[in-house]
């Protein structure tokens, strides 16, 4: 309970000294003690445990355009900071706080957590192919960090958990960039050819956060399906570790993106068609990009050199099919199962799905 005498005395001392004391008049939600949950078994003082009392009330609409912490008392003289996202449905997922702490607990260091000593000569073609893939991976890491970072200045403090988690996504993007750059420059190779990157425009051009999220779901799930082949693709222990660590990060990103999109679909079903439009765009760019160095490089690796590449193309096609399947699988989790019927025609071919016109002839 507030001890009024102590506070009154403190106020008096401050005032005598010409210091503001009105902060002592603020009604305190006394007794919020998150530390009580901070046991080693609980993972320490995780951000989830702060959401008690008024501090845990995440409003549907946040009406303050300053950097005021959620739960603090406003100083109405503060300038507006230019945030543009004030709707919970646009960004929210209940998983954010936990995923933020998970990202920190799972943090890794590309300098010391990858067994670089295990790198050894793997033959010219394979080295070229690994370096080509590394170049494209770096590009995606860079794009991910840049485009995610851009949204920070849009999201208000009301949804602080989302922003904290996105901070980890930015950092993971940096590591995705540099770990693959290191791989390219460490083993007698060099960088390959950059991608055309039409496929990234839906990320860089997004006008709404949810548009950015669906484009991210597409790219991340495609990447994840590839990373899951790490065992098969890795030439050395170092690469195996890189695939494993990147996979863990991308899975975390997808956990948020998918849970957010599921939340949006439940809260604002009216936006379903709009979201489909963003997917139309993202898929169109992906299909149209036509930059096949990724799949050709995979073929050289799977074929153990350029001679075997042609034959390995069937396996690569299967991997690309898995990528689309993974994408559709994540969309099903977001209550967007209807995407299967609306998937881009080109991507249907990648997935080995019959054309929509043909599908309509099949009796159900």
């Amino acid at each position: 309970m507030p001890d009024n005498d102590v506070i009154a005395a403190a106020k008096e001392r401050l005032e005598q000294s010409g210091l503001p004391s009105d902060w002592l008049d603020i009604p305190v939600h006394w007794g919020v003690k998150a530390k009580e949950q901070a046991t080693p078994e609980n993972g320490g003082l995780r951000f989830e445990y702060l959401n008690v009392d008024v501090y845990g009330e995440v409003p549907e609409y946040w009406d303050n355009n300053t950097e005021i912490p959620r739960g603090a008392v406003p100083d109405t003289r503060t300038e507006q900071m230019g945030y543009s996202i004030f709707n919970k449905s646009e960004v929210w997922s209940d998983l954010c706080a936990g995923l933020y702490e998970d990202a920190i607990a799972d943090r890794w260091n590309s300098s010391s957590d990858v067994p670089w000593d295990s790198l050894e000569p793997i033959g010219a073609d394979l080295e070229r192919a690994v370096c080509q893939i590394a170049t494209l991976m770096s590009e995606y890491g860079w794009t991910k960090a840049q485009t995610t970072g851009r949204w920070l200045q849009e999201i208000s403090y009301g949804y602080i958990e989302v922003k904290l988690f996105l901070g980890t996504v930015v950092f993971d993007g940096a590591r995705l960039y540099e770990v693959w750059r290191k791989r390219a420059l460490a083993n007698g190779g060099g960088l390959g050819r950059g991608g055309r990157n039409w496929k990234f425009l839906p990320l860089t051009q997004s006008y709404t956060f949810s548009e950015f999220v669906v484009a991210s779901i597409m790219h991340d799930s495609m990447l994840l399906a590839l990373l899951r082949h790490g065992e098969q693709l890795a030439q050395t222990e170092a690469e195996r570790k890189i695939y494993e660590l990147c996979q863990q990060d991308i899975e975390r990103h997808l956990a948020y993106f998918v849970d957010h999109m599921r939340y949006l679909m439940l809260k604002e079903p009216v936006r379903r068609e709009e979201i489909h439009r963003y997917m139309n765009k993202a898929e169109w760019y992906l299909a149209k990009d036509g930059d096949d160095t990724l799949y050709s490089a995979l073929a050289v690796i799977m074929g153990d050199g350029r001679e075997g590449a042609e034959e390995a193309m069937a396996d690569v096609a299967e991997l690309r099919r898995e990528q689309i399947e993974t994408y559709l699988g994540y969309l099903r989790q977001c209550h967007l199962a209807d995407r299967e019927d609306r998937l881009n025609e080109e991507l249907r071919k990648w997935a080995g799905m019959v054309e929509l016109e043909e599908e309509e002839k099949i009796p159900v």
Partner: protein
Amino acid sequence: MVTVDKLDELQIEPEVPELDLSWLNLDTEWGVSAEPGRKGLTLQQINKTLYGDIPATSDDSSARPRGAAAPEGATPRMTPWVLGDATETFSDSAGLLYDEAVSRQWSSATDIPWDTLDELPEDIERAMVQLCTSLTEVEFIAGDVPGKWLPRIAADHYESGLFLMSQVMDEARHTDVFRKRALANGGGLLLQGGGGGLRQILEAEDFTQMSSMLHILGEGFVQSLFRLGELIAHNEAEKRIFRLAAQDESRHVAYGVTHLKYTLEHEPEKAEEVHWTLDMFEDTLVDPDQANPGLAGALVYLLGDGDVDEGWRLFWHVRRKQVLEYLHRLDVAGLGGRLETGRLHPALAGALDEN
């Protein structure tokens, strides 16, 4: 809707991608190797070849990593513009600072001994949570700012990009740890007010101007304060928070100083612009009308442990150190002379007076 029964009928062979092996014969630098050193395979170690050459200017707005071959065929512009001049964003230390950031990440959940937070007298607890309310606010903006600039960093100057990405992470942790402290020990969040100046950092449209406000003056003051965190802290948890956050801030300040140094070495005429920015930002920082009513009071109260006179004495000790370190940083960056020329704001110059 595709049902499971229908799936088999809908399944045909997936289309096979076209095989294109032209990338097997590129003229990018080849035969490059790097050996892990004492700290593993750092950016410093892979930057030893041509891939480490920093172009003075870059007009590449794409994500293509420095040194990679350009793609064939048409490519889109990925961002309206990038800061292609290295003098705009570069720092010779950015790569090193990024490496350091990665190896010195910490967890506010597990690296702070929260169990050492004993019950504090109510006035002290209130002052501490007021300070933390203000700090979580300041840190919030400190993360938004690098995020805003990321799309404008040229991939050819990736070291600066990586550094800013690590800063976004660090500031998330700072926003989080001060919120945690506010809510951990019976207090709560009090009066908003990160103080004037946050908006100026966010709205700046010149990177070097932004960086001199954020990294050198703003975070410089914060770092000097955190390094004296022992004077504010009442337990091991609080000490550790200030110590770990100060360590992060040192990197942010170092980036700002080395960036300004790089810029002024290559473009000395930019000095006056930065002076002008600092004139404005110093003015905001000491403007009583823009001061956060909670921050100063809480800080003085904590410094004196409830004894306001003693708190004031220590406040000026802190302020003096802040100003001295600020001037030293400017010296290192090649922007010395603010005190000597009478350009330093009188309220800050006054802090140097021992009396």
